[in-house]
């Protein structure tokens, strides 16, 4: 069974963390993963840096730019992750934009992911329709899940379609906004979380974008299966480095 499905069978709210591979330093990828697992994080999204991450806010873009300056590439990341399953057994998701994957070669990319035992992908600029038609068969063949985003503006009919094509989980974007930390959620957001919860989708949902502290984590995960934190974690890494990750996780739950 895919590790993501296994994880969602556990009777608990999940905490997932995103970071940009190659940030703060090129070789931090593996230490960050080890420290996140030691801090009992449930799942990790490893960001594949891109020069033009148009769905991301300034924090992730800057960490991405820095990672590229540090020398991160797709090949470099795969090399770093080569033996990762000797140390890490929580689900690992690669999150990145489609262009670097195209240049690497989609088939080769999937093969490498399968060999490393990556569990799934999140590709914000690969629309569900194109994925369904052109790439799903290939991803399935390599045992890779592909997760999609929905937003407060996504029409119900499209959410149903995404639910049908998805495996793993649906990534619920907390508000109509690019990534970035917020300190609290308003009624509009909790109403939206509740509306989606009431749709009784087949695929579990996790909330991402704008989650930065215990309060927003609690609000997001009370209407879903858990939450993803990105920008707030990257800001923490920038200030505290990779050795105090446990403190960050404890501040969330």
């Amino acid at each position: 069974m895919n590790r993501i499905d296994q994880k969602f069978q556990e009777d608990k709210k999940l905490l997932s963390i995103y970071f940009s591979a190659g940030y703060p330093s090129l070789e931090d990828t593996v230490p960050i993963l080890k420290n996140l697992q030691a801090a009992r994080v449930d799942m990790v999204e490893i960001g594949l840096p891109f020069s033009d991450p148009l769905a991301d806010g300034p924090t992730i873009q800057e960490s991405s730019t820095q990672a590229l300056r540090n020398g991160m590439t797709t090949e470099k990341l795969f090399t770093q992750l080569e033996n990762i399953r000797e140390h890490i057994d929580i689900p690992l998701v690669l999150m990145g934009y489609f262009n670097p994957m195209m240049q690497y070669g989609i088939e080769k990319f999937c093969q490498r992911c399968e060999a490393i035992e990556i569990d799934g992908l999140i590709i914000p600029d690969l629309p569900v329709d194109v994925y369904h038609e052109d790439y799903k068969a290939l991803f399935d063949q390599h045992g890779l899940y592909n997760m999609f985003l929905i937003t407060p503006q996504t029409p119900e009919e499209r959410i149903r379609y995404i639910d049908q094509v998805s495996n793993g989980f649906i990534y619920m974007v907390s508000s109509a906004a690019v990534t970035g930390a917020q300190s609290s959620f308003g009624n509009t957001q909790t109403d939206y979380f509740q509306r989606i919860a009431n749709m009784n989708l087949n695929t579990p949902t996790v909330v991402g974008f704008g989650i930065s502290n215990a309060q927003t984590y609690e609000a997001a995960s009370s209407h879903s299966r858990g939450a993803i934190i990105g920008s707030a974690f990257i800001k923490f890494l920038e200030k505290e480095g990779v050795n105090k990750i446990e403190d960050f996780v404890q501040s969330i739950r």
Partner: protein
Amino acid sequence: MNYNVDEKGYYGDFGGAFIPEMLYPNVAELRENYLKIAAEPDFKKEFDDLLKVYVGRPTPLYFAKRLSERYNTKIYLKREDLCHTGAHKVNNTIGQILLAKRLGKNRIIAETGAGQHGVATATVCALMGIECIVYMGELDIKRQAPNVARMKMLGAEVRPAQSGSKTLKDATNEAIRDWINNPVDTHYIIGSVVGPHPYPDMVARFQSVISKETKWQLHELEGRDYPDHVIACVGGGSNAAGLYYHYLNDERVNIIAVEAAGKGIDTGESAATSALGKEGIIHGSKTLLMQTPDGQITEPYSISAGLDYPGVGPMHAHLFRSKRAEFISIPDQEAMDWGLTLSQMEGIIPAIETAHAFAALDVRKFGPEEVIVFNCSGRGDKDLDTYIDYFKL
């Protein structure tokens, strides 16, 4: 072969809408409405009226006598440089602002590189009394001070794009982010035939007035409504798309696209996307773009700020791959020399972008009976500082 967009938003292998889900409702709304609205009689009337009394259309098709004699061929200039605001860009912004109004939008965003599209957008927003925010790379703001001042005079807010390389592609990223953050009340006026479907087709249609006029003007002047060659410069490719549009499927017409070679194709400082680009995705469109082997988008270079876009519109990528169009690239120096030549032989100071197109005359032979139409896409006022520096005027 068909060179127009297909029902899925593709030109051959290129195009489509590779956009984050957050943009889906905005882009879907446009896709579902742009053809319908543009076909409505009251839209067409308002669009045509504004092009006539506000932009100053039809622009002349001018026979360049001295140039024709020198090159022993028949050279016509489609005088888009005479449009209000100084270039063809305003044809598109008029169309899009009318569309935005009909979609009930009350806030406009745009990206700009050199500032021409920003000025054209700020202009139509002033005309309609709509809030206007223009994203511009921090570096470009410093390089293009007069256009920044124009936008401000027109009431627009110019927001610096401080991410990445701080130029056009980053301004575009910032505009897209703004649209993600403001999905309901805002329309994004893209300035070229780039971006997710339906933008490339929509912008090409608004610019197609250029070849629509060329057809009847040529008919009056030459007794036939098609030339042997159409020639235009291509950055993103909107002026070229406008000139080619009604001739795309007319095989009697040879299409020539001129890109900016910058300091030379092999120097690492170039914007010749057809020569240096590989298939990939930029700003929501599958097209040819300049990138590293790892798929990171690279920064192009050209002395003309309007041509240094790392991609090219998907229509042009298709014209290139299918060999429907001939692509050539012209280095800075030759383009600058043509800025001077056109000024002194025809009394027309062209934009540096536009000057690139004319250099095709030195690269290729044309017969004495052949009719060539150049898109004289913009005037050179905005480039005076560059001309002054370059020629020590």
